[in-house]
C-alpha cells in the first residue's frame, strides 16, 4: 500500500452487498487499491444492485461498467472461473471513500447478462460499449448497438484474440458491395432511434448536427428531430474520435503508455498522466516522495486552469460573443509558458513518471508561477464583468439545460456539472490523493444546475486552483522528485556502473520496461471535467493486461437527449458548451 491512496477505505457498500446475498459471494477479491471486488453470480446481479440502490437512490452512482477478457490471464488466484468478467463500479457520494467493485463471471460462448439500464440510466452507453468491444450481450437493453466503432464493424476489438495493429490484417480493399454496404449504413433511419417522421399535425425535420459542426467541439454528431427550430428529440452519435486507447495500453510498456494518456483529455495534459501513474504505482507498491507529489499537484492544477480557460472562452463563443476567447487563450498561453518552462512541452508534456516526475523544477520556476498567480485574478474579474454579468449572456444561459442533483447522480455526472446542482462533491475531498489532504481549497457549488451555474462553478474553480498553486509554491518540500525503487521509470541509474546487478536491472528496466507485479489497481482523480479513473490489471508482465479508462465526458454526453427535449437549437449549443467535453475524452 502506498501513501497515494488511503489504506483505510470504507467498506460500507461491500458489507451491504455481502448482506444481500442469500448464498454469499462467489469470492471476495482484495485489491491493492483498497477497493474490494465482490464476485457474484449473474443471477444475483439485478436483485443485489436493485436492493443496493433502492434505499440510497440519490447517493449511489454507477461510476463505471466495463468488462475484462480473462482468457489469457494467468494470475487469477482466488477468483472464480471466468472467460469474461463484467465489472460494475459503484461509488457512494455520501460516505467518504466508499466504493465497491462488483464482478460477474461469464462463460466463453455467447456471454450475456441482464441489462441494468433501468436501474441506472447511465448504464445504457456503458453496456453498449461492453457489447461493442467485448461482445457481451445485455438482455433487456433498449438499444444494444455499436457505439464506438462504425455500425458495419465486425469483431470485438477489446477481446484478447482481436488484432491490435493494421499489420496483423490483410491489405485493405473496398469492393463495390462493401462500399454500398458502408453507404447504406450511413443512411439515417429515424425509426431505428425511436423517432417518428410525422406527428398528427406536422412533419418533422431531421437535422444532422455534426460531425463537423463548429459548435460540437470536435467530431461529434447529434441527430436532431426538429419541429421548426424546436428540438423534439436528439440522438448523440459518438465514436468518431475512437482510437482504441485502451487496446493500445495492452501493447505499450507500462512506461511508454504515459504519452498516450496525455491525449485522452487533450486539454488536460498531465492531468491524464496522474491517475495512470498512480494506478501503476499502487500495483508496484511505490511510495512517491513528497516533493514529487506537490509538483504533480501543482502541474495538474495549472492544467485545470488551462482547460477551464478554454472552456470559458469557447462557452462565450458558443453564444456568439467573439472576444473573450482571445483574452482567455492569451492567459492560457501564459499557463503554457510556465508548463513549457517546467516540462519542455506545452499541451501534452507526458511529464509524470512511474514513481515521480521526469525532472526537478527548473531554476526560476517560482518567479514565473508567482507572476501568473498575481496577474490572473484581476483578469478573471474583468471577464466576470464582460461575460458573467452580461445581460444577453445571462439570458442565454440562466435556466437553460438544468438538471437536479438526483438526475446528475443517476446519469453519472461528476465534476463541475455535478457541483453546479448544489452538491459539494469533489474527488479530491471524497478520497484525497497525492497531497490534496494537506491543501486548503473550497468546493464551489451552484444552485440550479443550469448552464450559467456550470460556468460559474468553472470560473470559481480557476480561482481555487490558483489558491492551491499558491500553497504549492509556498510549501514546496525539498527532496527527490522520484522514488528510489527499482520499478520506477527510467530506473535509478546512480549505481549502474558500480555493480552488475544494478546494471542488469537498469538494462532490463529501460529496454523491456519494468515488470509490474500481478494485481488490479484503480486510481481516480478529480480531472478537469470530472472523475477520471484508470483501472489497470497486471498479469505480471511488461505491459498492462487490461487498461480501463473511465472518462467523465463519456458519461456527460449521455445526458444530452434528456436536456435537449423541447428547447431551441441555440439552447442546445449553449448546453453543449456548458457540458465541457472533449471528444477524445469521450471516445478514447
Amino acid at each position, binding site marked *: 500500500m502506498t501513501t497515494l491512496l488511503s489504506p483505510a477505505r470504507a467498506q460500507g457498500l461491500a458489507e451491504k452487498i455481502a448482506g444481500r446475498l442469500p448464498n454469499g459471494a462467489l469470492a471476495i477479491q482484495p485489491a491493492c487499491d483498497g477497493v474490494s471486488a465482490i464476485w457474484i453470480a449473474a443471477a444475483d446481479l439485478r436483485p443485489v444492485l436493485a436492493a443496493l440502490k433502492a434505499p440510497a437512490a440519490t447517493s449511489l452512482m454507477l461510476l463505471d461498467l466495463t468488462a475484462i477478457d480473462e482468457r489469457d490471464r494467468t494470475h487469477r488466484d482466488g477468483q472464480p472461473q471466468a472467460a469474461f468478467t463484467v465489472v460494475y463500479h459503484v461509488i457512494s457520494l455520501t460516505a467518504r471513500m466508499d466504493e465497491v467493485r462488483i464482478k460477474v463471471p461469464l462463460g466463453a460462448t455467447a456471454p450475456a447478462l441482464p441489462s441494468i439500464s433501468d436501474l441506472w440510466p447511465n448504464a445504457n452507453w456503458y453496456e453498449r460499449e461492453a457489447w461493442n468491444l467485448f461482445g457481451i450481450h445485455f438482455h433487456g437493453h433498449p438499444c444494444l448497438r455499436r457505439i464506438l466503432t462504425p455500425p458495419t464493424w465486425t469483431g470485438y476489438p477489446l477481446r484478447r484474440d482481436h488484432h491490435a495493429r493494421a499489420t496483423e490484417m490483410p491489405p485493405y480493399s473496398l469492393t463495390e458491395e462493401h462500399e454500398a454496404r458502408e453507404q447504406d449504413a450511413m443512411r439515417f433511419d429515424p425509426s431505428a432511434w425511436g423517432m417518428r417522421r410525422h406527428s398528427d399535425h406536422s412533419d418533422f*425535420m431531421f*437535422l*444532422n448536427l455534426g460531425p463537423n*459542426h*463548429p*459548435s460540437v467541439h470536435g467530431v461529434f454528431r447529434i441527430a436532431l428531430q426538429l419541429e*421548426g*427550430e424546436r428540438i423534439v428529440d436528439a440522438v448523440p452519435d459518438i465514436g468518431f474520435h475512437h482510437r482504441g486507447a485502451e487496446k493500445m495500453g495492452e501493447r505499450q510498456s507500462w512506461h511508454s503508455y504515459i504519452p498516450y494518456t496525455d491525449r485522452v483529455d487533450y486539454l488536460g495534459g498531465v492531468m491524464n498522466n496522474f491517475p495512470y501513474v498512480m494506478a501503476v504505482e499502487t500495483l508496484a507498491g511505490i511510495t512517491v516522495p513528497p516533493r514529487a507529489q506537490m509538483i504533480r499537484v501543482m502541474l495538474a492544477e495549472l492544467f485545470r486552469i488551462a482547460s477551464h480557460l478554454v472552456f470559458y472562452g469557447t462557452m*462565450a*463563443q*458558443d*453564444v*456568439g*460573443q*467573439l*472576444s473573450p476567447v*482571445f*483574452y482567455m487563450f*492569451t492567459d492560457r498561453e501564459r499557463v503554457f509558458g510556465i508548463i513549457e518552462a517546467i516540462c519542455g512541452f506545452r499541451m501534452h508534456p507526458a511529464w509524470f513518471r512511474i514513481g515521480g516526475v521526469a525532472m526537478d523544477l527548473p531554476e526560476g520556476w517560482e518567479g514565473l508561477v508567482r507572476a501568473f498567480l498575481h496577474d490572473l485574478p484581476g483578469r478573471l474579474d474583468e471577464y466576470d464583468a*464582460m461575460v458573467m454579468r*452580461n445581460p*444577453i*449572456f445571462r*439570458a*442565454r444561459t440562466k435556466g437553460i439545460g438544468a438538471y437536479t442533483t438526483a438526475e446528475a447522480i443517476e446519469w453519472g455526472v461528476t465534476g463541475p456539472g455535478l457541483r453546479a446542482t448544489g452538491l459539494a462533491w469533489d474527488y479530491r475531498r471524497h478520497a484525497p490523493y497525492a497531497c490534496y489532504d494537506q491543501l486548503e481549497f473550497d468546493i464551489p457549488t451552484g444552485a440550479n444546475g443550469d448552464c450559467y451555474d456550470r460556468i460559474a462553478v468553472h470560473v470559481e474553480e480557476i480561482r481555487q486552483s490558483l489558491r492551491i498553486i499558491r500553497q504549492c509554491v509556498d510549501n514546496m518540500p525539498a527532496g527527490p522528485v522520484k522514488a528510489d525503487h527499482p520499478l520506477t521509470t527510467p530506473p535509478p541509474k546512480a549505481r549502474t556502473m558500480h555493480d552488475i546487478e544494478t546494471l542488469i536491472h537498469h538494462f532490463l528496466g529501460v529496454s523491456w520496461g519494468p515488470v509490474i507485479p500481478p494485481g488490479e489497481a484503480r486510481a481516480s482523480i478529480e480531472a478537469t471535467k470530472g472523475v477520471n479513473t484508470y483501472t489497470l490489471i497486471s498479469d505480471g508482465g511488461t505491459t498492462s493486461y487490461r487498461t480501463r479508462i473511465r472518462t467523465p465526458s463519456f458519461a456527460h454526453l449521455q445526458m444530452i437527449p434528456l436536456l435537449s427535449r423541447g428547447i*431551441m*437549437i*441555440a*439552447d442546445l*449549443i449553449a448546453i453543449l458548451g456548458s457540458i465541457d467535453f472533449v471528444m477524445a475524452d469521450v471516445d478514447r
Partner: protein
Amino acid sequence: MTYPALSAIILTPLVILGLATVLTWVERRLLGVWQDRYGPNRVGPGGMFQAVADGTKILFKQDWIPPFADRGIFVAAPAIGMMTVLLAFAAIPLTMGTGIAGDMNVGLLFILGMMGLGVYAVVLAGWSSNSKYALLGGMRAAAQMISYEVFMGLSVLGVVMMAGSFNLRAIVAAQAGVWFIIPQCLGFGVFMLAGIAQTHRLPFDLPEGENELGAGFHTEYSGMKFGMFFIAEYAGIILVSSLVTTLYLGGWRGPFLPPAVWSALKTGGVVVFFILLRAGLPRPRYDQLMALGWKILLPLSLFNVMATGTILMLRAS
C-alpha cells in the same frame, strides 16, 4: 442628363463597393486591436491590401452551384441583395449639393423600401439553397428582418415629424439648431437596434448564426456569389451608418471642416461603433430577439411617435 449627374451615378456604386471592401479589412484590424491580436497585417502597408487579395481570390474561385439548389433563384438572390443596397445609396445626400438623388422628396421612404426588398435576398438564398441549415437561416431572416423593418419605419417617424419632410436634405436642414439625436433619443436607440437587425450583424446575426447554423442562409454559397452577400452586408453597414448620420447626427453639419468630411467622419464613427458591438456582445436567442422587438421596441417607438406628435402639436398651438 448632365455630365456630373452621370458620373455620380457611375462613381457612387464603385466608391461604395470599394469602401465596403476596405471595410472588411478595417473590421478585421479593429477586431484585432480589441481582441489583443494583430489581424491581417501582411499584405501591403498595415495589411491594407488584404481586401484586394481577398477580392481577387474570391473572384477566381470556382463558381459552384449545388446540384440540389433552385438554380435561378439561387443566382438571383445575391444580386438582389447587392442591388437593393446600392440603389438605396442613391437617396443619401453626402452634402447639400452632392449625391445622386439626395433631393428626392420621398428619399427616406425610398431607402426604407429598398431595405425592405433586401429581405428577399436572404430569404430567397435560404430557400433556394435547398439545405436545412440555409432554410433555418432564411426562416430566421424572414421573421427578424420583416419585424425589425416595422420598428425601423416607426422609429424614423419622429424625425420625419420634426423635419416635416421625407426629403433627407430637408431633414439635415432641420437639424440646424440641435441634432435630432437629442430630442429623438428614443427613436435613435430603436433605429440603431433595428439597423443592426436589418444588416444582420452580431449581436443580431441570427440568419447566419455561425455557432448554430454553420453559415446560415449562405451556407451553400461560395466564390463571388458569397462575396456579393459579404460585400452587400458591409455596404449595408455603411448605408445604415450614413442614415444614422443623416437622420440623427446632423448630416454634413459641423464646424471648420468641409461638409463632405463631416459626413464621412460621422458615418465612419457609426461604422466603428457597429464593429465594436460585434466585438463585445453575445447573440440573443431567436425568440428573445423577437420578444425584444415586439414587446419592447414596438411600444417604445409607438410612444416616441405619440410623444413627438403631442409636443409638436402643443408647440404649434
